[in-house]
């Protein structure tokens, strides 16, 4: 194999336009995943009837099946659902008009939600019962106590694992190429195939992913320093 170092640079430059796609895939799936995960974790933690069972089923199923399978299931089922709904209610929708990336958004959010719910749940479990009791004793309702006292501390406790989830989703977002979304990885393939220089192109992609990961870790570390100030004995 002959390496063409200059093509690594060419590929690198060629890949840059795909970075926003990868970032938006990650951002959407992590944000929606966090919301879904929080709801799921709370439903299970506080044993809300029916919802808790649905939440458990969702988490077990999603964590028990590969992310790629979720994507394909969504990709093949969602259009049918959209067209059926549209026909039923005369909405004038058409699944063909839905951009491919939307399927990735939906599917990745569902995947991220299940993983992040476990992260949030372990954060919630790390918080001493006394915090909830103190909140109730000052007269808060349970939702107030969760929102103001328990949840913020749980997120702080879960931050390192949440960071791992974000990185996992960044890397997992490469699966989007299977539904023809041109993310970093797909772009690398395109760049490579025009010149048959696959190794160089994927090496450039790897370097960019690595850089993005380091950036996420840096940001997370900065947030962690601020948010968990209290646990290290700081003064406001």
């Amino acid at each position: 194999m002959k390496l063409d170092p200059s093509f690594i640079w060419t590929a690198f430059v060629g890949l840059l336009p795909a970075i926003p796609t990868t970032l938006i895939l990650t951002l959407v799936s992590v944000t929606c995943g966090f919301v879904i995960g929080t709801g799921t974790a709370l439903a299970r933690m506080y044993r809300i009837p029916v919802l808790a069972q649905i939440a458990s089923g969702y988490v077990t199923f999603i964590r028990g099946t590969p992310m790629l399978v979720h994507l394909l299931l969504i990709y093949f089922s969602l259009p049918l659902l959209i067209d059926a709904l549209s026909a039923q209610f005369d909405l004038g929708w058409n699944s063909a008009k839905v951009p491919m990336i939307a399927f990735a958004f939906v599917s990745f959010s569902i995947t991220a939600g299940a993983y992040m719910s476990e992260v949030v749940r372990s954060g919630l479990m790390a918080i001493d019962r006394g915090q909830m009791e103190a909140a109730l004793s000052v007269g808060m309702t349970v939702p107030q106590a969760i929102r103001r006292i328990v949840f913020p501390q749980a997120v702080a406790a879960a931050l390192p694992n949440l960071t791992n989830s974000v990185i996992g989703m960044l890397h997992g977002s490469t699966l989007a190429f299977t539904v023809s979304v041109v993310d970093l990885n797909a772009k690398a393939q395109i760049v490579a195939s025009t010149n048959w220089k696959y190794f160089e192109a994927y090496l450039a992609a790897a370097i960019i992913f690595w850089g993005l990961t380091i950036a996420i870790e840096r940001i997370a570390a900065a947030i962690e320093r601020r948010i968990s100030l209290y646990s290290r004995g700081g003064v406001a």
Partner: protein
Amino acid sequence: MIRLSGIRKSFGRQEVLKGIDLHVGKGEVVAILGPSGSGKTTLLRCINYLEKPGEGEIRIGDQALDARRAGKKDVHALRRRSAMVFQQYNLFSHKTALENVMEGLVVVKKMSKDEARKRGIALLEKVGLGAKLDAYPSRLSGGQQQRVGIARALALEPEVILFDEPTSALDPELVGEVLAVIRRIAKEGITMIIVTHEMGFAQDVANRVVFMDEGVIVEEGPPAQLFGNPKEERTRQFLKRLTPEASYTI
């Protein structure tokens, strides 16, 4: 005033409270004594409804609640009439001393932040922590944390403050500062129920001492009588065991 009637509580098959009747008048300070495991903590937690009694009635001020028919609203209304000072302090660990005191005022009493801040500062100064307003609990000693806990309870102006062994998690040299604060607020006519092992403290702060054992109130009376001339054999036994250990009380 507070009136407990026939409070019962079981954990599984173990009956921990076997029908407690207790009346505490306005401005009265009642100390509860009793061996470990006799149900003192459980009783306080029932009054604050952190533990749901199996049966019985709890009345605080104008709010009465029957344990078997208590809805969420009643529980919430009852809780707002009492405040708890915990053995392990349980300060909100992500909030500063001042924020701990302000939290209930802003969230529950819907007080403006400015007003709550003023009140919080005044109360923290009162418990001797005017210099620690912005410190997080992890930066405070146990005694300081417990004093914040007391300020947090006072802020709510509850009808009664419940103290569960407020000094038993403290290093001996920190006990005094916390007891001094409680002594001071007792003089202000705030109704208090205090579970404690500090006999000397109970003797001069309480109007009445209640001795509990195995889920029942064995005996109650003014401190001079209960300590000086207990009627029940069980009380006598307990006091005899307690006395030698109470050497560091003030």
